[in-house]
């Protein structure tokens, strides 16, 4: 398992000949999100396996080129191309330059992702919702992802839009820097995003500008920090609620 050049399993055969032993590398153009050293994730000298010197770059799937194909793994011009064409056409009509609005288009695992420039997100969402050829009526909320290694785009907001009319699903992704974690709110376009954006703010600290009441939703109102960021530890945090302080489980007094 550990020495596997190609842990991607069955679908990745034929790539073993690559020079670099990188995990399931698709292309060298992918988005670099970090570097992994050693074999077992040990970073304090505990790796005695002999693989401690191994350095591998972690890349997310990179930009795709036309034709994008379709959801069933269609080769050639497919449904994804239709969506992209319609979106680009509609953006043109609104006087937006598709090349600036859509930073890149990724087709991976038969799913279509548009990386959107954050300022244009509400306009894109409105087009996707209202254009008769697109009609993505249902937004299934926003999910945050924290990539500390993706410099300048540490925080990603990921939206999945479902079209009931055309029976399609696409993904929008917006990357923002840690220092300026502002994304325009989509509550105007998709009111369902109200709680979802509050949740993402709560856990990742992404500020959704224009949200009617962006407050914490899961954690207590006075909680410090954003728990699902990668630099936030799991456990070990004393809980303070309404003035009372409860120590972390490992620091509570013992009754034995």
């Amino acid at each position, binding site marked *: 398992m550990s020495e596997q050049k190609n842990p991607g399993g069955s679908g990745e055969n034929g790539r073993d000949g690559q020079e670099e032993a990188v995990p*399931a590398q698709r292309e060298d153009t992918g988005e670099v999100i970090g570097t*992994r050293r050693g074999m077992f994730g040990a970073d304090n000298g505990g790796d005695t396996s002999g693989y401690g010197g191994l350095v591998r770059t972690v890349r*997310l799937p990179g930009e795709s080129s036309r034709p994008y194909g379709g959801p069933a793994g269609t080769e050639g011009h497919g449904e994804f191309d239709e969506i992209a064409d319609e979106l680009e056409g509609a953006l043109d009509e609104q006087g937006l330059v598709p090349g600036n609005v859509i930073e890149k288009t990724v087709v991976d695992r038969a799913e279509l992702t548009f990386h959107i420039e954050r300022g244009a997100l509400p306009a894109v969402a409105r087009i996707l919702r209202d254009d008769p050829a697109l009609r993505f009526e249902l937004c299934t909320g926003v999910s945050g992802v924290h990539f500390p290694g993706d410099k300048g785009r540490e925080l990603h907001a990921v939206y999945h839009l479902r079209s009931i009319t055309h029976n399609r699903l696409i993904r929008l992704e917006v990357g923002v820097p840690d220092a300026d974690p502002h994304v325009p709110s989509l509550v105007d376009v998709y*009111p369902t995003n*109200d709680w979802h954006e509050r949740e993402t703010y709560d856990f990742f600290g992404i500020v959704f500008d224009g949200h009617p009441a962006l407050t914490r939703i899961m954690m207590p109102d006075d909680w410090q920090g954003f728990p699902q960021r990668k630099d936030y530890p799991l456990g070990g945090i004393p809980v303070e609620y*309404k003035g009372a302080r409860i120590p972390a489980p490992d620091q509570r007094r013992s009754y034995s």
Partner: protein
Amino acid sequence: MTTAPHSHSSDGPRTASDFDTEPSPARETTEGTVYNVSGGDWDEIAAAAVKSDDERIIVNMGPQHPSTHGVLRLILEIDGETVTEARCGIGYLHTGIEKNLEFRTWTQGTTFVTRMDYLTPFFNETAYCLAVEKLLGITADIPDRASVIRVMLMELNRMSSHLVAIATGGMELGATTIMIYGFRDRELILDIYELITGLRMNHAYIRPGGLAQDLPPGAVDQVREFVKKMRKNIGEYDKLATGNPVFKGRMEGIGYLDLAGCMATGATGPIVRSAGLPHDLRKTQPYCGYEDYDFEVPTADTCDSYGRFLIRLEEMRQSLRIVEQCLDRLAPGPVMVADKKIAWPAQLALGPDGLGNSLDHIKKIMGTSMEALIHHFKLVTEGFRVPPGQTYAAVESPKGELGVHAVSDGGTRPYRVHFRDPSFTNLQAMAAMCEGGQVADVIVAVASIDPVMGGVDR
């Protein structure tokens, strides 16, 4: 805190200002400082309510109210008997499952996700496993038998979830008989779970790549028996409730949400189907081979709680049909992908101590094959690697679209798993359903949403 002066004279009705709203102060004890639970901004709100001379008050219903489906806090602004504004307070059951997932292997994740919406464990597990399998690119390699058993368990689970929805919803109306009926039938389903997975809830039975183990002997017979029994029992709900004038009087026109409202609030499941849209992921985006099963998607055009009740009842009938088809379709075969780099743990069997590794397998890896031992150890402790990327997998849970956004960075642990839980999204529609109605109807509307706080808060 500032209280309004006691300006009211003794004549006239008693108002809130006649009561002492001063919170008890914090006091020192030998155990440390003891704080009271009142105070905060609620004092100001209470004081503001005292000053206004109408009957407008703000009521906290929950988080410990017996009819709010767990620790849901409803904040209701009431003018007389009318709810003028309704908001939800959630987060009381937040357990950080999504964060915890990032610190365990992909396979161990099923143990967490099964605890999210604790009434629909098999849906959580399946949605998660479908996402992991999509990331691994092994969706097509899942054995048929595993998919059929997944579908069977999910449909049994749909029934047990709907039974709780109907039972507790009825109980909140004061109809305790329907509660007894619902939990009686749910018990039959939980017995099946117990036979198949060893547990009544929190199963972790569906694993990335297939199932933890095959069906035990006697499971098929018991499910067949149950289907026979349940066919008879479902009629009782009809007889008891469907035409019952009291039941209809409480439910009809309550919790109204039309199709536009459903789309705006993102409501799915029985709520959107009660607005007349036959949107069901099992039909539109089939997974686990649902395209091969014969069933219908019931809808209603009433947009209200009564329509949702009827839909749940009909969905249970359709689930019985699907379960029967599953039983006919079960062919012998493996229940885990052939890839030994993923099938984890390598060999499972029911041992004297419950679920564990089979003695034969232990004997082999300990006695004769060092390689197999290493492989087993690595797979169990480190887990398998998942190629970098992200995916979204969705299943139609009894409550609506249960989506999983899974991100991998190529490691052996999930980089990020986000659950789009239908209860969470649907609960947002509560305000639209309840405002302008009466307090008693809030209970009915919330019951028709059927939120499970384990899923809402995760």
